[in-house]
């Protein structure tokens, strides 16, 4: 549905997006993840035909965004981050106008308008001036104009930024619903949002595509350390355990973790610990053997999957973790 091949976008001498290639299939729900200024918006603007790529090719539903721009644009519903609306228009007038601009005829607009207003729950405000609406409701008007013409592809740039928390929850639920019907591309710098809605994450950092995977796989693949939680009984002191664990080559760090104790409830004589280990070196087996050989009791041991947040931080900070 969407093909981006070796796309680079320069603003003057400044590269906003560098050599990005990606394919998005029909029906996929994809999240662009990255901090502000990473190149998410620029990538979306190139896909929507708003700005041409400096190098490379981008096609939408088989139409090149430059040479067959109008055909490509017909397939897209787009909501920019700024939620552009004509403040002096009524909600339904605005939606009619946007429908016309998207090439809808009167009958089609009349048929779609009530349904869309229903989907975004704007029923009570259909004749309100947009000026009078709160940020959250304006966002709904923005989403309504993006889906009105039943586009194959829906591109939403930071759709939950700047709206109040109660409305964020509703908006996310709405977007998740839309993901069932459209090829959906969503950008965000909020990780839980992406992992909640999207089945594929594209991490963009400094204009480059640095990861492209399912949220779960991403977590698996990009892990540089494994984190293990254990509870040990019968040791004389915490430092005894820690020093014997640190003797193992694959162990990066071991420490007593008060949060573990708080979560599990402290048991007399049982010491909770967190261990960071290098991956793929049988850390769990070695830790278990060490504890048992010392004659202590290993009452609990499990791997803690790293949250997407941590992966994201790891992807986007220059210092690597564990050094």
């Amino acid at each position, binding site marked *: 549905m969407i093909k981006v091949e070796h796309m680079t976008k320069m603003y003057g001498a400044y590269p906003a997006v560098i050599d990005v290639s990606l394919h998005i299939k029909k029906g996929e729900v994809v999240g662009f993840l990255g901090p502000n200024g990473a190149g998410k918006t620029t990538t979306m603007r190139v896909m929507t035909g708003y700005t041409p790529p400096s190098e490379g090719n981008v096609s939408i539903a088989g139409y090149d965004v430059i040479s067959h721009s109008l055909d490509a644009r017909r397939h897209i519903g787009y909501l*920019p981050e700024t939620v552009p609306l004509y403040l002096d228009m009524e909600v339904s007038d605005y939606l009619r106008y946007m429908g016309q601009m998207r090439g809808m005829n009167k009958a089609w607009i009349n048929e779609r308008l009530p349904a869309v207003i229903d989907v975004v729950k704007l029923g009570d405000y259909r004749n309100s001036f947009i000026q009078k609406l709160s940020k959250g409701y304006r966002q709904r008007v923005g989403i309504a104009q993006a889906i009105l013409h039943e586009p194959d592809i829906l591109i939403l740039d930071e759709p939950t930024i700047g709206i109040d928390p109660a409305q964020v929850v509703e908006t996310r639920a709405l977007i998740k619903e839309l993901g069932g019907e459209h090829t959906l591309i969503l950008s965000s710098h909020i990780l839980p949002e992406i992992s909640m809605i999207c089945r594929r994450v594209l991490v963009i950092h400094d204009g480059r595509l640095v990861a492209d995977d399912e949220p779960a796989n991403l977590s698996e693949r990009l892990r540089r350390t494994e984190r293990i939680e254990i509870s040990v009984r019968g040791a004389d002191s915490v430092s005894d355990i820690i020093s014997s664990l640190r003797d193992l080559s694959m162990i990066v760090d071991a420490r007593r973790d008060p949060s573990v104790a708080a979560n599990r409830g402290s048991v007399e004589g049982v010491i909770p610990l967190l261990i960071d280990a290098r991956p793929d070196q049988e850390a769990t087996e070695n830790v278990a053997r060490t504890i048992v050989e010392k004659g202590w009791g290993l009452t609990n041991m499990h791997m803690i999957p790293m949250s997407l947040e941590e992966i994201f931080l790891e992807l986007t900070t220059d210092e690597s973790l564990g050094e």
Partner: protein
Amino acid sequence: MQAMVASLSQSGSNIWNVAYKELKTYFSSPMAYIVAAAFLAITGFFFVASVSDAFSEASIRGFSAGAIFFMIFLSPALTMRLLAEEQKLGTLELLLTSPVREVEIVLGKFIASFLMLVIMLSLTLYYVLVLFRFGVPDTGPIYTGYLGMILYGATTLSVGLAASAITSNQLVALVVGAGTLTGLTVVGFIAERLSGTAAEVLNGFQLGSSFQTLDVSNFAVAQGGHFADFSRGIINFGDILYYLGMTGVFLLLTVVLLQSRRWR
């Protein structure tokens, strides 16, 4: 062939949809009423001043001199919102990612402002009624005067629209538009002080108004450049070509300015 017809009819409806929306916005905002009121007040003053002497001629020359002079400021006031506001609100991004061509957006907006101008001018037909009621005016210069004002007005609106495309600030659009039109007015002034080809070229660009408009006792010289013949009842093909050409050039410039936003 069929595809071409379908595409043309789509273009036509895009242009009309933009124009209709802008017209509706004109009538729901105070700006259009303020501009229309100012236009009527100013032209009314010039009309009265030109016909209230004992031996004054029954013509619209005084009114048209005032009208075209103040269009230098009022036309950019009508167009300043049209593209600047789209850029300020960010709605231009939605228009330019819709299956609509830049030229359709520009023509739609131009037509809306042009229809506003026609409405404003049609309100001044009241002066013509007064002339016929109290005098025996020559009809030729009235027809050509209105034709000239419509052509001249279209040119000033296209300049104003181009100014509106370069900025997201309406005030900047107004100043740049009025400034450009003032420049096209004073070239005649500069040409008088030059000679040879330079003077001829500059005179060729003289839009039609003159600062002598402000000398209310001397309307005969208040209309120069390409408007002079229209005010005398003469239709000159070159003048029509100039106004249509200038309008076309500035509309094209507006389209190019909009397209250039994509590359920035």
